[in-house]
């Protein structure tokens, strides 16, 4: 299965690594522009209200204030902030400023001033009169008759032909069925029907959202943005402001993490308007508090799973019903919900499957893309119910999974039925190392062995969850690359693909180097600048390695052909056929003669000698499959019966991502995702008061794990080869965030016999459930 490579499948040093550790990496905020103004946003203190009047006169009069923007003086253009392909499968329900505010933290007025302090002073001088409306916070209440209508404006719509009924707070709906679920479920020996709830959480990139805009010498608008989607950012900014695309340039420098929250065009419209109005450089940086309250979150979801199985362990029927809470605006509302089904249901072999999904508007913080993208929420419910079904049958929960999980060569009706805003694409599984993942994990966790607790009042337990994700959105997302050759035999690799810390610049350089017979040190990657780099949808949907990787591979192949052509024009290779030539050690070599030509000579010849031209190519790629990576997560916990506290002792996560182009980076993706998942499962949560105000918008009270909270974590890469991927690669970035909720929940059940069906698994929740069990 494994193939031999020179650069690919080796852990070369991250190409921007030394720059970053030397503190040289230049992030959005690390430039000084003379005369730069600052933006501060006045936000709504109410969850639902109409702005009756807004008076900015006093604030405008404050020295140092340049302009103030509100719904009264900024054009109202419906759009979505979701940075997705065009037309977006998210409703156009957002306006740069709105007369109605829909959550605590919604935009009211932007102050542009000399300093942030002046802007803050000015904010206090803005007089706003609100007509407070009744608010609705739970999606179940939101879709009931008589609930307050959140989007009652006439001009909101969804630009693709899908269900959208804002008049009853229904932001998205999907239902599909394969086979006959009801009949198969009724006829099953064992039936389990459970509802799970996964909670609000934030991505917490160490760098909060930031955008700096300025007019260039030709009066074009330049935006330096911490974004995962520079091209969508350019397009949506143009849409909101009326500035033509040709007059906007979006630069993505180094990015301090995104995890989905930067797949959002969140600041650019306001910065663009501010630059237009003032003609000055303008900066808008979110504070950590604003990042929590006013940026994006994971979609909280109720997920109801019904599974019917036979006593022999065969799954007959599966149903997943999702009720997703998108908050005040419908960013990624449809696709996150659909992804619950499309990334979780195909994991088990079953003929009768039904998926039903609703997404509701509420007066809560706005959800968006978050690593895992619905699969996290759905896998929690599914993997807990799968364990419960196995236990009901009397089978070991791992054996039950082994018996039913999808294998290479098999398909699922869900692949075809459920896509992103339209039907999906039929596919059968190519590479699948899930069986090997399970085997490795079982051994590492010593499955079946019950360890004694460290203290008498503690209980130990083990849990499992198996997972799949996808690799890019098939037949929708496109990536491309441009490569040109330089006189010293190096190559510029220009990509719209967005390295936001993931290491994609390195991985894609390795792919180019592998094809071009050189090392990654001779590839100069650059991502991204809409003026210079070709289009790419950006860093989302686990796509960059698989999708852009293939585009890079194709481009490099084109360049290779050109190099062969030049070689043939040059003296030494006159009599050699192109079929005999190959690239190695930055040289053109020939299989039949022992002559070589260096890349440097090739490029110099092409540039200066004869039939001159720039050796360069640009290729694009779309995919027809979205091959899933697979993983099996195993965990051992110890529950303190005196407090309910869950201590994680060991977490095991082997991953099949096809060929890991860079094993250390792939492993790093896994470890980062796992720890984020654990943190989500055990401690991270939003606390709200009865008015919808978030009470803990800071790292003092919203706890993410630190070094001292780490369990023993064992990860590995299971070798498979995906024929449709570049050098056999699939995705790796998202999948491993999905395991912690179900694996830990299953382990808690194993330890103390309680099933916690909503996260996070706080000591209080576990303690109370144990108390309830005793009754």
């Amino acid at each position, binding site marked *: 299965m494994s193939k031999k490579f020179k650069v690919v499948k080796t852990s070369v040093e991250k190409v921007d690594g030394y720059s970053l550790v030397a503190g040289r990496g230049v992030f959005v905020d690390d430039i000084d522009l003379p005369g730069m103004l600052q933006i501060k946003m006045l936000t709504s203190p109410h969850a639902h209200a109409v702005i009756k009047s807004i008076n900015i006169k006093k604030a405008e009069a404050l020295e140092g204030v340049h302009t103030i923007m509100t719904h009264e003086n900024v054009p109202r253009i419906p759009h979505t902030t979701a940075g997705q392909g065009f037309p977006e499968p998210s409703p156009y329900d957002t306006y740069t400023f709105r007369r109605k505010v829909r959550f605590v933290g919604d935009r009211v007025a932007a102050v542009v001033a000399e300093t942030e302090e002046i802007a803050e002073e000015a904010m206090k001088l803005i007089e706003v009169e609100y007509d407070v409306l009744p608010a609705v916070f739970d999606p179940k209440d939101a879709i009931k008759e008589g609930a307050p209508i959140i989007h009652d404006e006439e001009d909101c719509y969804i630009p693709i032909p899908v269900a959208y009924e804002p008049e009853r707070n229904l932001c998205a709906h999907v239902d599909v069925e394969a086979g006959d679920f009801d009949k198969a479920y009724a006829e099953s020996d064992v039936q389990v029907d459970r509802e799970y709830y996964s909670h609000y959480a934030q991505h917490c990139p160490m760098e909060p959202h930031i955008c700096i805009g300025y007019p260039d010498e030709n009066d074009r608008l330049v935006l330096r943005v911490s974004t995962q989607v520079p091209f969508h950012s350019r397009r949506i900014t143009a849409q909101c402001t009326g500035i033509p695309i040709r007059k906007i340039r979006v630069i993505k420098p180094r990015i301090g993490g995104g995890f989905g929250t930067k797949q959002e065009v969140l600041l650019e419209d306001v910065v663009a308007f501010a630059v237009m109005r003032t003609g000055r450089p303008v900066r808008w940086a979110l504070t950590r508090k604003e990042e929590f309250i006013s940026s994006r979150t994971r979609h909280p979801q109720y997920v109801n799973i019904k599974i019917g199985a036979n006593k022999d362990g065969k799954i007959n029927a599966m149903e997943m019903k999702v009720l997703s809470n998108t908050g005040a605006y419908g960013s990624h509302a449809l696709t996150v919900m659909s992804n619950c089904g499309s990334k979780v249901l195909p994991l088990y072999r079953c003929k009768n499957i039904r998926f039903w999904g609703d997404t509701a508007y509420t007066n809560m913080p706005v959800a968006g893309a978050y690593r895992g993208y619905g699969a996290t929420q759905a896998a929690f419910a599914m993997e807990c119910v799968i364990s419960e079904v196995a236990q009901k049958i009397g089978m070991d929960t791992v054996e039950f999974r082994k018996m039913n999980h999808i294998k290479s060569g098999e398909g699922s009706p869900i692949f075809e039925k459920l896509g992103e805003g339209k039907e999906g694409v039929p596919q059968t599984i190519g590479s699948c190392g899930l069986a090997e993942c399970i085997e490795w994990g079982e051994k590492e966790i010593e499955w079946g062995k019950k360890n004694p607790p460290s203290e008498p009042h503690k209980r130990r337990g083990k849990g499992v969850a198996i997972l799949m994700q996808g690799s890019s959105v098939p037949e929708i997302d496109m990536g491309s690359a441009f490569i040109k050759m330089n006189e010293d035999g190096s190559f510029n690799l220009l990509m719209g693909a967005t390295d936001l810390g993931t290491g994609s610049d390195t991985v894609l350089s390795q792919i180019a180097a592998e094809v071009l017979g050189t090392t990654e040190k001779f590839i100069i990657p650059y991502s991204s600048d809409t003026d210079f780099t070709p289009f790419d949808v950006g860093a989302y949907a686990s796509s960059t390695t698989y999708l852009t990787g293939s585009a890079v591979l194709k481009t490099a192949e084109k360049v290779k052909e050109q190099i062969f052509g030049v070689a043939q024009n040059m003296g030494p290779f006159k009599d050699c056929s192109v079929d005999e030539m190959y690239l190695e050690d930055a040289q053109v070599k020939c299989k039949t003669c022992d002559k070589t030509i260096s890349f440097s000579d090739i490029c110099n010849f092409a540039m200066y000698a004869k039939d001159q031209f720039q050796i360069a190519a640009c290729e694009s790629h779309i995919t027809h499959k979205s091959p899933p990576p697979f993983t099996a997560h195993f965990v051992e916990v110890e529950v303190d019966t005196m407090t309910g506290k869950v201590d994680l002792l060991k977490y095991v996560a082997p991953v099949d991502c096809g060929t890991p182009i860079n094993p250390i980076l792939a492993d790093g993706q896994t470890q980062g995702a796992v720890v984020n998942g654990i943190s989500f499962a055990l401690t991270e949560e939003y606390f709200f008061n009865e008015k919808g105000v978030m009470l803990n918008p800071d790292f003092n009270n919203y706890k993410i794990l*630190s*070094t001292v909270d780490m369990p023993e974590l064992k990860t590995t890469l299971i070798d498979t080869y995906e024929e449709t991927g570049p050098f056999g690669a699939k995705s790796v970035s998202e999948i491993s965030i999905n395991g912690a909720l179900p694996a830990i929940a299953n382990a808690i059940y194993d330890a103390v016999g309680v099933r916690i069906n909503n996260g996070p698994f706080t000591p209080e929740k576990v303690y109370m459930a144990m108390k309830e069990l005793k009754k």
Partner: protein
Amino acid sequence: MELKLNINDKLHVLDIEPGDLLVDVLRKSGYKSVKIGCREGTCGTCTILLNGNAVNSCLVFAADCEGASIHSVESLGTMAEPHPLQEAFVKHGATQCGYCNPGSLLSAKALLNEKPDPTEEEVKEALDGNLCRCTGYVKRIEAILAASKKMRS
């Protein structure tokens, strides 16, 4: 007001406001490796060494540092000649987005100054204020232990 600071072993005479925080003064003076992630002393991206101790520079008034010695990550090594810690961070995959790297490297440096041969537990404790959302910490801890070994040999 005037402030004398010894930044990376060079004396700087700076003009500051009495209420300025150290993080802002350092960034204004060109030390952009000192990052901002929370301004509340909770994320660790603004970590610097203040008289050898790793601290959140967002919680320190610059005026309180008169005559102090400050080290930012620029003092460790360069891209061409990295400090063993920096090299280990790259080789062990402890750098992803890199936003937390300057801070975590300085916490590690302070630890190794005091304890050249730390245990894994001591590494974890020394880095407990430097949050990282990308790596899951495993590779960061491995890198620091590897660097300490290399520096001792």
